[in-house]
């Protein structure tokens, strides 16, 4: 179809605002202060110290994405089955908390989870022992889920509401159990939304660090922390850029691998 030309304004925009800055980052990553070509920024990264940081970031991002998928898919299904009026309201209510400032929301979690916070206050009033809810892995994971869940739910929901109901009815008529209807009909049809959701959660989760810093109390040092440190505190834009390029390559490889599992869909993700 001749409709591809309408994407050209964006292609132009992209070249200006994405490709050129990318070139800048590339230039930084391959040079040092005096603009001579060098690979030392990349070599610097391949030390156990920094690879450990990368490993932890990947681990957290994977766990967060998986958790968001497991928790988000059911809620997307539940909302999509409601009447139009109710589900519109519910999906808007789902997104609404994200409009509150991120720092405020995270601080509010600290008020909830602290040693003398609201939850422990209620627990002790009811006679239980206070729990250690903050500055551990669970707190960080919960914070990540809290921040990224809407990004998983929204694309899945928008696909689920338009699944042809007659397909589901046909499957049921042919004797499929509820589980089979889900696994053979609904889930495969919702896959484009799922892939979008995974993309929108995993990629930013890899470079997020404020949540882990505030809720993890410094036990978490992630790639995002490292990059920010290099750009702002160490003044080493070259090393920071190199790390970003490495991350980009890493994600591209990860996406290539996952697309092998996604043969006939053209993937909303990469490759």
């Amino acid at each position: 179809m001749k409709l591809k030309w309408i994407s050209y304004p964006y292609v132009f925009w992209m070249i200006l605002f994405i490709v050129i800055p990318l070139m800048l980052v590339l230039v930084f990553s391959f040079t040092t202060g005096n603009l001579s070509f060098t690979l030392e920024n990349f070599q610097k990264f391949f030390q156990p110290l920094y690879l450990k940081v990368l490993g932890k970031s990947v681990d957290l991002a994977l766990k967060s994405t998986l958790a968001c998928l497991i928790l988000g898919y059911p809620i997307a299904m539940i909302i999509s089955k409601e009447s139009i009026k109710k589900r519109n309201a519910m999906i808007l209510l789902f997104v609404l908390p994200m409009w509150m400032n991120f720092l405020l929301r995270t601080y509010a979690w600290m008020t909830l989870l602290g040693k003398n916070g609201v939850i422990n206050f209620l627990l002790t009033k009811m006679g239980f022992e206070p729990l250690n809810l903050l500055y551990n892995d669970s707190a960080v994971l919960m914070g990540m889920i809290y921040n990224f869940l809407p990004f998983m739910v929204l694309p899945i929901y928008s696909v689920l509401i338009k699944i042809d109901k007659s397909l589901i009815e046909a499957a049921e008529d042919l004797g499929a159990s509820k589980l089979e209807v889900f696994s053979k009909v609904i889930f495969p049809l919702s896959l484009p939304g799922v892939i979008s959701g995974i993309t929108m959660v995993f990629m930013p989760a890899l470079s997020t660090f404020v949540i882990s810093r505030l809720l993890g109390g410094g036990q978490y040092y992630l790639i995002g922390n490292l990059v920010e440190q290099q750009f702002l505190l160490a003044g080493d834009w070259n090393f920071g850029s190199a790390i970003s390029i490495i991350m980009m390559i890493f994600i591209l490889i990860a996406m290539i691998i996952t697309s092998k599992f996604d043969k006939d869909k053209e993937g909303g993700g990469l490759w």
Partner: protein
Amino acid sequence: MVNKFVKRLYTTLIFLFLYAPIIILIVFSFNSSKSRGTWDSFTFKWYIELFKNQEIMKSLYYTIIIAVLSAAISTAIGTFAAIGIYNMNYFGKKVVLNLNYLPVLNPDIVTAISLMTLFRFMNLELGFLSMLLSHITFCIPYVILSVLPKLKQMNKHLAEAAMDLGATPFYALRKVIIPEIMPGIITGALMAFTLSIDDFVISFFNTGSGVTNLSITVYSMARRGIKPEINALSSLMFITVLVLLLIINNRTSKDIERRGEA
């Protein structure tokens, strides 16, 4: 039925989870102590102080304007881009999509500083325009990510059929494709607005000339302690948006029911 009970319970838990910090925020906006650590007494004074604070009001103004504009513009550009990309050949599609995801994937600081450097090369003074442009840049990928699945879900032949019946491509676009993918467009717009309203790092490095947004104001206050007026503002914003959305939702659903759609 047990099934229904489980669904209700799960939904309630999830929403409780989402709203717990919001409730805390609202409750503490009535706390006369400036600190989150103690509760002194109930007061309305922060709400009054809020409207006297010109700096916060100015941030609110810019935040809303930039969020609305960038959501609108990025939704428009992104929707058309998604439609166009969907119709590209294999190779073009891959290249464009992969480049498209860079702002999603990069740490905020990298996007922020590379854009800032770009604006320097363009000799653009940092201010409203640079902040708007950077917001649109990081919003569009999310719009595309929201619209693409709907395009894939859509029956490819619908548009072809329309054109076979004599519609121009543009008419087919307007009357066939866009209504089909509308949920994706709306989702994309919602996400773009959400991202824009809450962005700090990219906004901070790409603004100037007195233009500031709420996130910058809040983060800048963190060292000294976030003023309770901010809590009051957040609570007000929340209530306002909640009421607005429920009103609109009520009316649009009535329209749809009236027109007999399901």
